[in-house]
């Protein structure tokens, strides 16, 4: 079974090196959803206030290759909505 901590740590490392998100300051992984063949990882700004509305921030991570792909609507929407209720990992507050 996949170690959640390892997955999150590796992803965090990958996103830290990504320049795309630098305008929002440090980004942290807020949650990981398990959708079968891939994870949906949601990033939020580290300093996000509780009443801020962050626009999206979701990525797909292929389980077998570890490749990070942009999130798109071609994924199974119902599966995603179902996974929202039972996330694989949620950042401790």
């Amino acid at each position, binding site marked *: 079974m996949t170690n959640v901590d390892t997955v999150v740590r590796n992803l965090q490392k990958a996103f830290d090196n990504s320049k*795309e998100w630098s*305008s*929002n300051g440090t980004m942290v992984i*807020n*949650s990981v*959803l398990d959708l079968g063949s891939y994870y*949906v990882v*949601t990033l*939020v*700004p580290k300093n996000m206030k509780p*009443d*801020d*509305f*962050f*626009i*999206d*921030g*979701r990525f797909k991570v292929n389980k077998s290759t570890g490749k990070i792909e*942009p*999130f*798109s*609507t*071609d994924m199974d*929407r119902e599966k*995603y*909505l179902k996974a*929202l*209720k039972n*996330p694989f990992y*949620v*950042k401790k507050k």
Partner: protein
Amino acid sequence: MNDFRDYTNYCRDNYLAHHGIKNQQWGVRNGPPYPLDKKTSAKVKAGKGEKRNDSFNVGSQHTASRTHQGSYTVPNHVLNEVGGWDNFFKKDNQFKNSYKDNDNDLKEVVKFQNTGWKNIAEFDDVKEVIQSNFKEGKGEFRLRRDVVQDIRKNGFSNYSRLLNEVNDGNEHNNCSKCSDMVELMSRGMNPEYFSAGRSKFGMLNSATQYHWDGATVYKEKSYSNIENRIKKFGNHGSGTIGIRRADGSGHSMHFSTITGGKIQVQDGQNGKIYDTLESALSAEGHDPNQFCSITRLDNATPNIDHMIEDSVIRTSVNWRNGTTGVQNMRNTRLYNGKNDLQVGLTDFNRRYWSE
């Protein structure tokens, strides 16, 4: 003295305003705004090497105004039946009013019109509406305004294809930009789809308020509170609604209050239309325990400079109709003290004819 009064009265009563079109030559009365003479038009066309688009014959209607009587848009065949403008103005008010331009309605549309952006009238489904009405003798100008009013009144139900043009169907973290585009479309403009990724603002409120001058943001929690807030905007209100999901991500959609006190939600990212607020929020996975961000846009003004800066719209090249759009818009629009767009009826007509 009496002679002078007679003269001014004569000028006032018999003044017939006509304005030309772009590239119109002095003394040439063949073509809009004058009726097209079929015999001589062939020579003109051959000389210029241009092909006339018969489906949108801009020479088929006339616009005239008398300073004290308002302005009228009358199709050519009606004008011929009546026997010219002089006879038209002698007709009773009931007849004339059916062709009278409503200045207030026009200003609403004119406010956001510009030459460079692709007009919604160029879309196939909108064209069908315009052409079918055109056959009834109303005229394109009046009907294009109707299309915009129809969208403001009834939402995008009849124009779903228009909504699908906002995005290519995939999500690019550009939901706030797509919502802005839907609002621009509902005002009669259609800027080119620009899939340049997310806004430089990660936060929805900051992005929307940067793109629109005078946008007000509200935060509400339950469905009933959100509905009540939006209904306070009155008829034909519009704006964006931001949701929060349980995984921390968010989404932005466009809403409008349509006829009958209903709220329609349009998702510019995937072209979906939701007839109720609840269906829209649940379809996007909104967490009912979280707040929704409601930004009112119907009384806000688009900040073109900020939209360009944040890549919501393109700058000056590669527009769908091949013109230098925003630059044209910036040059042609007129400002009043409140930084609002204010273009006169005549100006709009001239631009309409030159299209």
